[in-house]
């Protein structure tokens, strides 16, 4: 049975590091009207921060920063679906990218744990990427307090 969408928001912003905190505020703002534990909220914000930061650091490397789309949807079955999309270079090897401690970044002291954190804090993480077209990361979580 197809679940009804209770609420949704579609945003986009420049892939610049200033907007990493913006993405967390957008997420927190969206969830404000819905029952969520403080811990859950912090975990979800962290997962979003990781996905958006990946796009900021990698998607448009070596060229002018493009856009990141951040879409949030809450379904009637309490499932939260967050989609982070960029239109940048794409991930060459998604499986490799998702390995703990793996990073292709040379200069920014990246820990390589972004996907591991997303996977720990969300119920499901799906990544699709196309060379030179972009990357889409879909994060899903069933909110514990929503009826």
């Amino acid at each position, binding site marked *: 049975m197809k679940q009804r969408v209770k609420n949704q928001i579609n945003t986009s912003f420049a892939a610049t*590091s*200033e907007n*990493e*905190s913006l993405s*967390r505020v957008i997420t927190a703002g969206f969830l404000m009207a819905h029952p969520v534990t403080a811990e859950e909220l*912090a975990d979800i*914000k*962290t997962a979003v*921060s*990781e996905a958006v*930061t990946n796009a*900021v*650091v990698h998607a448009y490397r070596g060229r002018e920063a493009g856009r990141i789309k951040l879409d949030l949807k809450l379904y009637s079955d309490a499932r939260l679906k967050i989609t982070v999309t960029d239109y940048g270079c794409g991930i060459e090897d998604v499986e490799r990218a998702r390995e*703990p401690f793996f990073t292709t970044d040379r200069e*920014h*002291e*990246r*820990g*390589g*744990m*972004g996907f*591991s*954190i997303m996977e*720990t804090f969300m119920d499901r993480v799906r990544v699709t990427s196309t060379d030179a077209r972009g990357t889409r990361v879909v994060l899903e979580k069933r909110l514990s307090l929503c009826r």
Partner: protein
Amino acid sequence: MAIRWEETEGELRFFITGEIDHHNSIFLRREMEETIRKSRAPSIVLDLSGTEFCDSSALGLILGRARQAQALSRTLIVQNPSARARKILDLCGAERFLKYS
């Protein structure tokens, strides 16, 4: 996000409050790198009791400073991490690389 530091004999202590994300890490790295370079203190302490939010960027920042400390033959420990900072650092397996207290 705010950073301040105190230097007493033998110890350089950083206090980082607020949020540590990739954006803030850029500024924090610059400040900490330079301060560590100018200091003679053999012991460097990162006090994260006031860190309200961090993501895995904090790991990169801290490991970078740990590498810098090691190259200068100094020690670096993370002290009093907030519950949030502790959770993220533990998830990143930081205890393999860092000393906590």
